[in-house]
């Protein structure tokens, strides 16, 4: 809460009433005849064509899924196909006015939207632009599949074939698909046409679309963003989080001139009345009309209305009006687009949840037949003309389907020939200093914010010339190191944005951002609502659209609140896009202590488990700045773990102190913090400092010299240094504050066992926190590993120490007992 805004009790305590305005339901009531002023015959026929193309495309898929054949072609498609037969008008109506600057994000049921948006983009792009797109995409790999048999005299026609083929080849998991077959039916997309990822997680696109809209607003990019989600997603927390964050008052009230307009975003609910088989209206939720939700979110009710999605003209009309609102006043907008899928949720759907009569009733409202009937009745076209369109489409679909199932023309990724094909897409591993080349917008010259001035007086090494520790208030702290890296990036990359809970004014709960408030304009650094899913998910959308983001979760424990966004979105889109998308997002998570069971957990293992995330955990200022610099220079998602125990720690290892200048530490490289020869300690996080204490005790009391290695990174991780050390010492203890079971250390210990088995004098021993809840601070010594635990473990599992009395029980019997009980 900024001081400029006054929470006035005199106003807030006054009695008054909240009033609502009426929300339109299916207000559009014009006929084709009446709309002839706006649409030419060609326009009308194009609307029909696009709907018919979607219908035929889905019919073909349905036929293949259920009968393994279509129009004389035989094919078995084991992959998913969530069809939207019946919903064509809503897709075509939505995209009719959109161009390539407008982005759509979709759901698992988005074939229709891909085709509609693609066809609309093809209509609007010039032939040259189309050729350029087709020839450059994957170096023309998609185009090459259709080229030999295509009619190249008509570029638009070629482009339509390209679109249908690219989408279908993707659905059939072919390497010639839009995402090399790595996305598939539920994820196919094609960014050159403004078609952004479709998401198999219900409501998954909400937070991502929010991020994309943020990108457009904060970087003054043209176009609007449409979040296509279903009525079923109205029950998803992240959808609500995305809506709440998208309407945050600060945009209009606090963001600077040029940025202070509502987000160019439409939450478009394709309301087909079912979330899989559950009836969203009447059974699983209780809003009656979905559009009602808008009234609960903002005073302008998100300009919400219910639109008849069975009439393409009604949808186009709504989109025209909403675009205008967004351009004039800003969004976001909520649209409840009524529709109905005649097809089941998937081909295996037996429709046990709805009656035959219901389906038949909607078939009577069939949009294609209805539109044709209107046109014929209005004498705007003849049935033959419609039949011709359908014939042409059927020929196109048949041809494309033939190409897409041809193993020669449309091969799958050959992992025998190229075993690295998928692994090489897991990370983009690029270094891009700035995502866009323009002057970054800042409020102060670099170094003139109060924090930087304070830091300028600090000593950048933990010990003074006499070897005495420098006081905490005078030493350059770990939080300063992170600050410095982020501050510098703000002055380099104009797209860099960062947000989270209390990052502005407060400076982050742990004062990392303190000082940035004065230097960074609001739209580049702001407080988000307490919406972890939206914080992370919007970071994904922001990066996907071309920017670089640092998003922060105040505590590592809050990862659960952003689980899907981290595990399914942040981690996966680079590979699922076959490298089309980059994900330069740094997710800062702070690992707590002292605050008990829900505020003190090291969950690095959860993130390390998910392919596609880089995970680092620096615990010295030198490492923190170097790794943050690396994370911010790269194009991959990096989960940047920090520890609240040591934000104030000074640099104890890098004798030259923490450089003021830019430097990078390579992600994935562990660091030897202390050399030794008799035993190796490998630590993740602040256990490093306990390991060093243990090393000193071993040296003085037991004449054993310990080599202490700080993992620094968890994924990726270069084992070479560790193996070299273990070959030398023959013994290794791994330690971190994470609960031992399933921890990242267990993974490392197992890998070390394999890589250094012949050199081991004892099994690698993991000491982690107990498999309990984190108790209160006063009891933490029984929970988190500390120096004596190292000696206990060595004594009992590696090499008995003469005269040593262990405290913790590391015996095998105890290990079996605890595992038996799951504790």
């Amino acid at each position, binding site marked *: 809460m900024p001081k400029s805004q006054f929470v006035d009790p005199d106003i807030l305590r006054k009695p008054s009433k909240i009033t609502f305005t009426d929300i339109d339901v299916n207000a559009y009531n014009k006929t084709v005849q009446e709309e002839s002023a706006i649409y030419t015959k060609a326009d009308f026929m194009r609307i029909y064509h696009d709907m018919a193309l979607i219908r035929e495309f889905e019919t073909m898929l349905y036929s293949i899924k259920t009968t393994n054949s279509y129009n004389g072609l035989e094919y078995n498609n084991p992959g998913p196909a969530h069809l939207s037969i019946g919903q064509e008008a809503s897709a075509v109506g939505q995209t009719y006015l959109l161009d390539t600057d407008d982005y759509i994000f979709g759901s698992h049921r988005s074939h229709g939207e891909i085709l509609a948006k693609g066809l609309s983009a093809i209509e609007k792009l010039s032939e040259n632009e189309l050729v350029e797109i087709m020839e450059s995409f994957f170096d023309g790999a998609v185009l090459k599949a259709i080229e030999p048999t295509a009619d190249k005299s008509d570029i638009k026609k070629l482009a339509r074939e390209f679109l249908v083929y690219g989408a279908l080849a993707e659905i059939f998991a072919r390497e010639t698909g839009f995402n090399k077959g790595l996305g598939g039916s539920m994820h196919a997309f094609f960014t050159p046409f403004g078609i952004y990822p479709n998401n198999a997680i219900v409501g998954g696109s909400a937070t991502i679309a929010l991020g994309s809209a943020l990108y457009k607003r904060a970087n003054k990019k043209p176009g609007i963003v449409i979040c296509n989600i279903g009525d079923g997603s109205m029950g998803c927390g992240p959808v609500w989080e995305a809506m709440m964050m998208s309407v945050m008052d600060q945009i209009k009230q606090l963001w600077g001139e040029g940025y202070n307009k509502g987000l160019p975003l439409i939450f478009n609910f394709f309301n087909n009345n079912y979330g899989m088989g559950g009836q969203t209206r009447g059974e699983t939720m209780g809003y009656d009309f979905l559009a009602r939700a808008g009234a609960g979110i903002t005073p302008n009710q998100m300009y919400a209305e219910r639109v008849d999605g069975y009439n393409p003209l009604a949808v186009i009309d709504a989109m025209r009006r909403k675009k205008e609102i967004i351009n004039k006043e800003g969004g976001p907008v909520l649209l409840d687009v009524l529709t109905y899928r005649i097809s089941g949720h998937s081909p295996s759907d037996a429709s046990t949840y709805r009656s035959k009569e219901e389906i038949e009733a909607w078939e009577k409202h069939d949009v294609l037949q209805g539109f044709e009937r209107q046109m014929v009745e209005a004498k705007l076209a003849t049935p033959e003309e419609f039949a011709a369109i359908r014939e042409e489409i059927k020929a196109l679909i048949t041809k494309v389907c033939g190409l897409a199932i041809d193993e020669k023309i449309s091969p799958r990724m050959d992992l025998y020939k190229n075993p690295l094909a998928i692994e090489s897409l897991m990370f983009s591993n690029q270094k891009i200093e700035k995502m866009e080349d323009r002057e970054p917008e800042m409020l102060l010259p670099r170094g003139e914010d*109060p924090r930087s001035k*304070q830091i300028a007086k600090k000593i950048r090494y933990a010990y003074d010339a006499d070897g005495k520790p420098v*006081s*905490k*208030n*005078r030493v350059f*702290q770990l*939080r300063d190191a992170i600050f410095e890296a982020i501050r510098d990036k703000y002055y380099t990359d104009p797209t860099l944005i960062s947000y989270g809970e209390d990052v502005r004014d407060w*400076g982050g709960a*742990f*004062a990392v951002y*303190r000082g940035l408030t004065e230097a960074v304009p609001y739209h580049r650094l702001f407080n988000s609502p307490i919406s972890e899913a939206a914080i992370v998910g919007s970071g994904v959308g922001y990066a996907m659209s071309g920017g670089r983001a640092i998003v922060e979760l105040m505590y590592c424990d809050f990862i659960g609140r952003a689980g899907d966004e981290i595990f399914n979105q942040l981690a996966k889109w680079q590979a699922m896009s076959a490298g089309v998308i980059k994900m330069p997002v740094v997710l800062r998570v702070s690992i707590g202590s*002292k605050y008990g069971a829900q505020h003190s957990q090291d969950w690095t293992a959860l993130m390390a488990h998910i392919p596609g995330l880089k995970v680092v955990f620096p615990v010295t200022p030198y490492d923190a700045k170097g790794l943050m610099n690396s994370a911010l220079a790269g194009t991959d998602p990096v989960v940047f773990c920090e520890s609240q125990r040591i*934000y*104030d720690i000074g640099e104890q290892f890098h004798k030259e102190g923490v450089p003021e200048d830019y430097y990078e530490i390579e992600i994935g490289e562990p660091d030897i913090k202390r050399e030794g020869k008799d035993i190796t300690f490998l630590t993740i996080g602040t256990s490093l400092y306990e390991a060093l204490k243990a090393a000193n005790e071993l040296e003085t009391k037991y004449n054993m010299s310990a080599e202490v290695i700080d993992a620094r990174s968890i994924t990726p991780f270069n084992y070479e240094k560790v193996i070299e050390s273990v070959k030398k010492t*023959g013994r290794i203890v791994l330690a971190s504050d994470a609960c031992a079971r399933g921890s990242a250390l267990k993974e490392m210990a197992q890998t070390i066992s394999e890589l250094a*088995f*012949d*050199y*081991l*004098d*004892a099994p690698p021993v993991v000491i982690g926190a107990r498999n309990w809840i984190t108790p209160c601070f006063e009891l933490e*010594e029984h929970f988190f590993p*500390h*120096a*004596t635990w190292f000696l206990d473990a060595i*004594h*009992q*599992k*590696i*090499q*008995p*120490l*003469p*005269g*040593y*009395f*262990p*405290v*913790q*029980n*590391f*015996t*095998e019997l*105890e290990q079996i007992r605890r595992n038996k009980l799951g504790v």
Partner: protein
Amino acid sequence: MATPVIMPRQGQSVESCIIGKWHKKKGDPVSPGDLLFTYETDKSTFDEEAKVGGILLDIFFEEGDDVPCLTNVCVIGDAGESTDEFNPNKKEEEKTPETTQAKQAEGESPTAPVKEEQAAIISRKEGERIFISPRARHLAEKAGVDILSTPGTGPNGRIIERDVAGMIEKGKVATAAAFKDYQGKALDVTGSGIGGRITMSDLAAPGALESMASVATTKAAETGPDYEEVANPTIRKTIAKAMHASLSNMAQLTLNSSFDMTEINEFRAKIKASKETLDLPNITINDIILYAVSRTILDHPYCNAHYYDDKTLLFKNVHLGVAVDTPRGLMVPTLFNANRMSLSEISTTSKSLGEACRNGTILPDSLKGGTFTVTNLGTLGIESFTPVINPPQTCILGVNTIETKVKMAGSELKPYPAMTLSLTFDHRALDGAPAARFLKALVVNLENFSALLAR
């Protein structure tokens, strides 16, 4: 009433804060709510406002000072009031640094402490499961250590690297060629190969075969260890104690000097010739040396002495210890008042003492009280040695064998019989020069033995 203003503690983890800016000067009037100063933690900047009104009487810290939390920063009160009692700088007490060391948990320990394992060679049965770490196994293979004989001191008796290293240190290693024969036999064979490795020829040596045979027999019969245990007799323990105490407590060093035995030989020849007529005993070279010592040493009192930390006893008479080799070990009977005995008496008495020692009839009192000892290894052909002093004596004389040496007689080389004397002395009791002077005087007296007798 003066009121101190403390540095607030902004959170549990904050130990101290830096004063940012003073907004009031000493002597300024202040009202409640007035901004006194700003202060910074590592996280944020805070304002400190006055809670009482009055005069800002004193300021204890300047801008930029790092002030521990809850310390008085300034004092507000009425003009003229004393602020001394609030001044933290006047009663500066070194705060003891927080001890964060984990408390050693009390109570029962999950496992007992390890005993220092005896690292004796052990013998496992053929086919017995051996628990050994991969690292230890590799080292054993590389070094030629027999893991069947290696004790395991790791967890659950696992053989770990240090156990194999212990075997290597003790030389329990064999060459690759010899390993097959060596393995599993727990042989106590000394290696003669590179780095002390046991070679095939070591195994082929008679001792080894015996050892192998005995091991085999022992193993077959399973009748206990492959050695005979012999209890140390008291004399051995006494000698061990005395000799070790001697070497560990004293600053011993040995001087060697030889003398021409020509005259002594002539003298002994005469005695031999007239032995029966004069009723003389068989005078040995040792008797002559004992006599010469008894007549020389009183001029060198620190050689005929007992040395203690705080005093030295210089004896007026010479009580000579005479080392005697007996079947039970070394014994040193004392020839009391040797300086008052004739050569003949010395000879007779020392012989009877030696007999008594060998027969075990020596009286305990005769084994005490020596002031100087003579020990003779000459009969065993020893040319020079470092005898060990019998404390609290300060010297011991070692008598060596007779050798032939040459010296210049005019322009000619002349051979002569020579004997080396090795005098060990305690440098704590006397210095090198007085010891050397004694040895020189002794040598001169022995070379001119007739003249000594005449005295």
